[in-house]
């Protein structure tokens, strides 16, 4: 931008500032009216997005008679937690949560550890064939899960581990590796090589450099990728459904489905409670980490 342009723009800005300062009440009112359609639009948008969630959470406190006799938008008559009690005791929600944690935590930990190490080996280390290897792993992102389910099922059956959570953990890890490796390689690419070279000049080997410099430098990236993988494992249904060979292995998503089959059309409370638990728990996580989650999910899809 030339000096003249800056000058013109600067003058234009100061002019608008003057106008704003001297704006009469009438102009202000006009401004509000002009913005009114925008506010109505935004309000409608927020109602569409938020009301269904509010409705189901409020509904989770209603008794069966309230469901049947009161209009659907009526507020619950009191904070009655019996639907939650019932979901937890008879609907196995507690077991479902335990299973989901039992599967998600090891999967995400494995995915991260393997993916970060591989990303480092593929991006910081220099060797022939690394680009081809990265491309090979990248190809895995395109392949849908259905393509590997039958062979994996046969293999797990052969090894006799179908009655454990291991098939899910292993499958989630395999499914998560390509994207994580690719993202980590991309993040390592943004770090100036000089940092790693400087450490090795001081006599530190490349493996130690990975643990001492690579991992700490990637802290933010690792958290972002961890969130992406957490949500994709936690919210998955296909793999969980395939490898849930008995009810005691069911994760939350599988549990929700069977809860719906059991209660869905007769008793509304427990199902509403189970859905609400999902909304509230993930809502709290989202409240604290929304910037990271949004950035992570966006990066995961664009680079993938």
């Amino acid at each position: 931008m030339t000096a003249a342009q800056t000058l013109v723009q600067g003058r234009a800005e100061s002019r608008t500032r003057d106008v704003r300062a001297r704006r009469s009440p009438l102009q202000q009112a006009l401004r509000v009216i002009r913005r009114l359609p925008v506010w109505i639009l935004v309000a409608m948008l927020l109602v569409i997005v938020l009301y269904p969630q509010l409705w189901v959470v409020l509904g989770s406190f209603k008794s069966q008679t309230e469901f049947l006799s009161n209009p659907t938008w009526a507020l619950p008559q009191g904070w009655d937690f019996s639907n939650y009690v019932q979901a937890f005791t008879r609907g196995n929600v507690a077991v479902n949560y335990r299973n989901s944690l039992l599967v998600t935590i090891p999967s995400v930990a494995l995915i991260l550890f393997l993916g970060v190490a591989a990303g480092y080996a593929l991006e910081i280390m220099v060797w022939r064939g690394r680009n081809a290897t990265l491309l090979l792993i990248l190809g895995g992102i395109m392949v849908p899960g259905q393509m590997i389910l039958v062979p994996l099922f046969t293999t797990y059956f052969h090894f006799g581990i179908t009655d454990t959570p291991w098939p899910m953990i292993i499958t989630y890890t395999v499914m998560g590796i390509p994207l994580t490796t690719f993202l980590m390689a991309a993040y390592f690419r943004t770090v100036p090589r000089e940092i790693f070279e400087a450490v090795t000049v001081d006599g530190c080997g490349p493996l130690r450099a990975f643990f001492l410099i690579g991992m700490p430098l990637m802290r933010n990236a690792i958290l972002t990728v961890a969130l992406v993988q957490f949500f994709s494992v936690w919210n998955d249904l296909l793999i969980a459904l395939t490898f849930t060979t008995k009810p005691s292995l069911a994760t939350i998503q599988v549990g929700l489905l069977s809860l719906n089959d059991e209660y869905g059309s007769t008793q509304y409370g427990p199902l509403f409670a189970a859905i609400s638990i999902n909304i509230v728990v993930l809502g709290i996580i989202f409240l604290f980490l929304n910037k990271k989650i949004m950035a992570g999910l966006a990066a995961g899809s664009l680079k993938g």
Partner: protein
Amino acid sequence: MKRVFGDRKTIIILLAPTLVIYVLLKLVPVLWSLGLSFFEGNTLRGFEFVGISNFTKFFSDPAAMQSLWVSVIFAVLATAGQIVLGYLLALLYVFVLRKGSAFVRTAVFFPMVLPTVAVALLFRSLVSVGSNQGPVNAVINVFGGHSIEFLASTVGTMGVALAMTYWSSMGFYAVLLYTGLLDIPDEIIESARLDGANGVRLVRHIVIPLSLPILISSIIFSFNSTLKVFDSLLALNNGGPGTSTSPLTLYMYRTAFEYSQYGYGSTIALVLTLLCLVFTLAVFRSSTRKADA
């Protein structure tokens, strides 16, 4: 320096576990599944080589054709809606709300992190009829209409499935496209405004061409993920009424794991994979051609 970062031992320690798992549990199964699609049977009954008959069966199987149709229709409509709604929201964030868009952006994004199963069951309740009528039909009643049993018809079920897909992912696509719109230099927009471009014309001739790359990658991503639709149609109405809204993924799942036809199931999975591949290449090629012209 080259020697230090070319250290074999380090490369093997860091890469070998990932590579071994990836090759053994992803590449081998893909090839295995490819091979299985020429066989019939399952692990317990044994396998029999049947050549390409699984493929000829697929194209003459009305249930397969129907599920292929469901998947494609769903993917096309879901992608179109997600991208259009996401783009409109992104325009709203960038040009109308400007700096004040953070709260709306975050709130509209949130449903994306909810499990699809939970969202599907929520929408099931929203459109329910009968003794526990949901808000959607309650609103229809207020305006004098009769309650509609959405999930009793194929079109209704697809409509609800699409609505829930838009509801849960438009905020995600909005953020995706928003970051793309932010990359457009202000000077370009300003100078276009000075040249008299405004509103729709500004968007059509300046904003869309400049955000085309991110628009293309969003379309590819959206189509690839909606073609694999599974959770929403399964949880919403169990692929029903009947099997009329059962997509390829669900048909594959049932064929392989409920009817234990591993060979035919693998064939269906292969068709799905090829569909994703062909579409991605098609969009990619058409977009590069457009960029050349």
